């Protein structure tokens, strides 16, 4: 916990972590189809589905919830769903990961013991969960190359979010323990 506090207290690290988390969040919402560009609406508006109470917890597939409303901001539409909360949780874990890496990188060279950034690859499985429709649509452009792979992808898909969360937590644990004790005060 002291190490996490050390990350939070460092202004530069905090700023970078927020930027990276925001970028990830936008990418995540786009990947699950909850961020739409080039719409024709004007101004800012929120539209809720009349039946929003009955669909808010309904999952289209595991970890992909039914949108229950739309937030319209000029030509951008954000579909409101519980994926916004899941995205925030993942963005937080990614922010902490990057914060730890940035913090370590900014230490004087002699303090960077075993400096590694492998942990940030843990973010990738979370993106794969988003590109799903009735088949993993991100595979569609590669259909001619990957015929039959969809069958296997569908089988592993439910485990991708737990995998991403597990890897991100492991990576945080692995990275922040490298912060020297002397920097915890």
């Amino acid at each position, binding site marked *: 916990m002291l190490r996490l506090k050390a990350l939070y207290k460092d202004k530069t690290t905090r700023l970078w972590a927020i930027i990276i988390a925001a970028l990830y969040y936008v990418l995540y919402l786009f990947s699950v189809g909850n961020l739409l560009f080039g719409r024709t609406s004007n101004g800012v508006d929120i539209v809720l589905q009349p039946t929003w109470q009955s669909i808010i917890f309904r999952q289209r597939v595991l970890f992909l919830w039914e949108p229950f409303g739309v937030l319209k901001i000029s030509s951008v539409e954000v579909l409101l769903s519980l994926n916004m909360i899941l995205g925030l949780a993942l963005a937080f874990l990614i922010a902490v990961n990057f914060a730890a890496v940035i913090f370590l990188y900014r230490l004087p060279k002699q303090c960077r013991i075993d400096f590694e950034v492998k942990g940030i690859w843990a973010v990738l499985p979370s993106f794969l969960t988003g590109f799903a429709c*009735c*088949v993993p649509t991100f595979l569609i452009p590669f259909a001619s190359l990957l015929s039959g792979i969809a069958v296997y*992808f569908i089988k592993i898909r439910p485990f991708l979010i737990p995998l991403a969360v597990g890897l991100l937590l492991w990576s945080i644990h692995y990275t922040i323990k490298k912060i020297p004790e002397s920097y915890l005060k």
Partner: protein
Amino acid sequence: MNNKWITILIIIVLVSAGGSALYFVDRSPAVDENIGIEPSGTEISIVDERGRNELLLSNILSGGVPKDGIPPIDKPQYISMKEAEELLRQNDRVFVVESAEGVKIFPQNILVWHEIVNDVIDGQNVSITYCPLTGSAIGYNCHLSETPTTLGVSGKLLNSNLVMYDRESDTYWPQILGEGINNKFADRVLETFPVYWTTWEKASQKYDNALVLSRTTGYIRDYEKDPYGDYKNPSSRSYYSSEGLMFPIMNVNNELNNKKVVVGIKGDDGVAALDPLYVRKKKVVNLVVGFDPVVAIYDETLDAVRVYKRVLNGEMIEFNMVNNKLVDNMHNYEWNVNGQVVSEPNIGQRLETLTSFDVMWFAWYAFYPETELIMGD
């Protein structure tokens, strides 16, 4: 400190993985997993010694979504053509259903997200069904027993084709086959009605007072976008234009491009695949499917093919284009594309419609390897 972190990590991963596993087990296909998919390229007759339905069930795969994870539209709302004008572009694909009570138009960019619309037309419970992966739009009558039912999306695929289920008995109905393959309605055949593919431009020119399916579906989707590709732009690389398939199929044939659209025709004793471009060129094609005399007529107003049994009063007739008019050789009656006589004295007499629909070649062949292929000259 270290142990605490590791314990938290292990608990989170176990809980999440456990949840996933439960989800997975709950939604696993209701078929025998030990019967694998037959290797692609092996021709399998649908009438197999193991039993046709068992064979079909064993080839069903998960499409990656739970039951009704692709939600059918159960309370369709319609808008006027004038209102639809603002939402549809000229070359957007639409599906047309003609009935005694009027014409209904179903935009493809809505059905691609829902696959089934349950509606009441002419007092009958019907389903307008569309499978994006096989490019097939088919209308089904849902009166299976005394109480009419509705169809849902099972989340399963057979030969890449939508497997529907009925909400009365949970029987599986592969869309192209249109026959029950398990449970209460095994071997029952759903009655069909024609659903014609066309563009919004052609449909809006042909019909004045049609109703158009509204985007108020009860769900929020990006109805501007088709996740599989773009029919408006055939040169774009997408699922619709590439040779590749997403899922294994039971029977493979390389005579045509996988995604080539054919008109699949089901006769009483046989099936055929007809090239719509051939019909467009000839305007009318007389053929025999199984033992059924059949006529395929090109409807220029919709750029669609209409298929009928060419039998009138028990007699087989043949059709020809004479001075740009559709005429039969037996009585010299003039006919319209709706299969109706338009000349005296038998105005209104009509031909029987045959089950036919546009479908990608790979999917038609996968279900019907015995099919005749008619490409013309």
